[in-house]
């Protein structure tokens, strides 16, 4: 792995972090509405995993989708514009934070119903297999999502039909305010794979290089022999969404995890091993910050959707009003 790739990954993680910090501010200012689920603390997961996916591989996730969108190659400005509900957003302002998508880079969203995108992932993988493509579908979901029926039906089907899906559980310890052990019969999510005789692994999600390595192995396994469940241990530093009272955890706990801030961990690693100079990393940070500033400007200056947009893109054929 060469130096430039390290810098690129570091820049990407900082970009996601700064972009979401900016989003939080815009939310407080009332410029972003609805729900806003920040990825802050989990950046190593999307960056590490997506640094090794192939262009033909499809990606799909839940509503906590900003980081994954950016790691898929969605421009920060298109993300920011969507958050502001502008016509220049990834979904023309119709989807919002929870529904980013850009099929141009094979990012299929951004889905707000917990677990509902797992069957979609199975179906996309089925389509690729049907066409004898070697593409893999990477499906991200949370620990809380593993307790819903969709998880069971999708993992079982993917194994029975040998579908090329990499199931990725971002175990950030909580589903909203519910700790894993209060909602799941097993503490290790990867153990659920055993009920399907499915290959699986568990990795530290605060270390981007370990995540990357685990993803590389897992993707190879999927291309070779079918579905795989990868559990990534991570943590969200912010509330579940904006305005979370956070009664379910202590600030001590949060601070303990923040010592493993994936960006800090990575920076230390790159410096300690003299892989990249501090100067280069600082430059990357400045670049990222400029990108965010530009993205915010772009989003703010972009136009609102026209009133007619209300009835657009619903049906391909025929009227909207019956």
């Amino acid at each position, binding site marked *: 792995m060469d130096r430039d790739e390290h810098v690129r990954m570091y820049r990407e993680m900082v970009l996601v972090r700064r972009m979401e910090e900016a989003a939080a501010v815009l939310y407080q200012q009332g410029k972003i509405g609805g729900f806003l689920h920040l990825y802050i603390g989990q950046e190593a997961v999307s960056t590490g995993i997506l640094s090794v996916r192939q262009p033909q591989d499809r990606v799909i996730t839940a509503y906590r989708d900003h980081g994954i969108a950016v790691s898929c190659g969605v421009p920060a400005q298109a993300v920011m514009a969507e958050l502001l509900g502008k016509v220049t957003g990834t979904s023309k302002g119709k989807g919002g934070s929870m529904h980013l998508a850009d099929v141009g880079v094979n990012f299929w969203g951004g889905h707000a119903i917990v677990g509902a995108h797992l069957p979609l992932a*199975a179906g996309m993988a089925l389509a690729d297999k049907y066409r004898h493509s070697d593409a893999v579908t990477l499906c991200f979901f949370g620990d809380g999502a593993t307790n819903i029926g969709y998880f069971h039906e999708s993992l079982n089907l993917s194994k029975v039909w040998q579908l090329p899906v990499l199931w990725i559980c971002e175990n950030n310890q909580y589903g909203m305010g519910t700790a894993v052990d209060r909602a799941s019969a097993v503490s290790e999510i990867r153990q659920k794979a055993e009920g399907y005789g499915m290959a699986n692994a568990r990795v530290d999600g605060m270390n981007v290089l370990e995540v990357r390595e685990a993803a590389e192995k897992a993707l190879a396994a999927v291309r070779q022999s079918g579905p795989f469940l990868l559990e990534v241990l991570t943590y969200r530093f912010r509330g579940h969404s904006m305005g979370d009272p956070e009664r379910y955890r202590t600030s001590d706990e949060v601070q303990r995890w923040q010592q493993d801030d994936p960006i800090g961990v990575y920076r230390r690693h790159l410096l300690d091993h003299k892989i990249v100079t501090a100067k280069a990393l600082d430059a990357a940070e400045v670049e990222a910050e400029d990108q965010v500033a530009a993205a915010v400007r772009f989003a703010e200056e972009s136009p609102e959707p026209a009133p007619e947009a209300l009835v657009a*893109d619903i049906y391909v054929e025929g009227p909207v009003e019956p």
Partner: protein
Amino acid sequence: MREAISQALWEEMERDERVFILGEEVGVWGGTYAVTKGFYDHFGPERVRDTPIAESVIVGAANGAAIAGLRPVAELMTINFAFLAMDQIVNHSAKLRSMFGGQFTVPVVIRAVGGGGRQLGATHSQTPDVIFAHFPGLKVVAPGTPADAKGLLKAAIRSDDPVMYIEHATLYQTRGEVPDGEFLEPIGVSKVQRQGRDVTIVTYSKMLQLSLQAAEQLSKGGVEAEVVDLRTLRPLDMGPVLDSFRRTNRAVIVEEGWRSFGVGAEVAARIYEEAFDYVDAPIRRVAQKEVPLPYNRQLEQSALPQVEDIVRAVREVL
């Protein structure tokens, strides 16, 4: 009607490599209602896929395959099991396209057979068509004749929009002319299935057959009923209904499902809204009694709309 549906599926699979079938017992068994009999041997296990009993992943995987460019036909063994896939149908099939600003289409067909009258008990005898028609983003089709069954299914499979295609279990035996080969009927177009000057009967699916029988009986008494078949519940084509009503000034709406918040309510409301000055008598609705259908044959039949109920309702509006 079974053959008509079967033919449509077969022809579309022959025509388009991207079309495939998935569902419970569609393959080796040949379809619980024998609609896909012979398909597994001819098209093979890749295109005729037996699934686990897991409705939400059946429809969900179909949605996923559809946005990825295939044209899945998902079969729900009965519409009563659609409730287990409800989230995929109304939150995903119906919304995926617009929610992402039209980046992709969802050309999925969800086939589901419904209807009462076979002593299957409360959970297995429903005709809940109306609740699916309530959701914008979906198209809901429910043919009442073999020809329409074929033409509409072929149109549904070729449509780039998600279509819920509702069959009726007691119509499979219904005979009727079916043009073979290339024959399509447009989705969203109602059709006059019998002409008459005295009263307009608006109906669809199984109740079309009963309505036609009622019309024959009435005709003996000198009353000529015009029977308009909605064929599609969403988008709802009121044109032929209103044209007919403006001539007859009287209407009876017949559906198999429960009356309250049913199809008839919408159709009646629309007639009053759009042809108020032509109304000579209160519009009547014939529908199922407001009960979960019981197993006992007499009780079940007493809850379902019968030909006599239609005849009586027509007499009331005359």
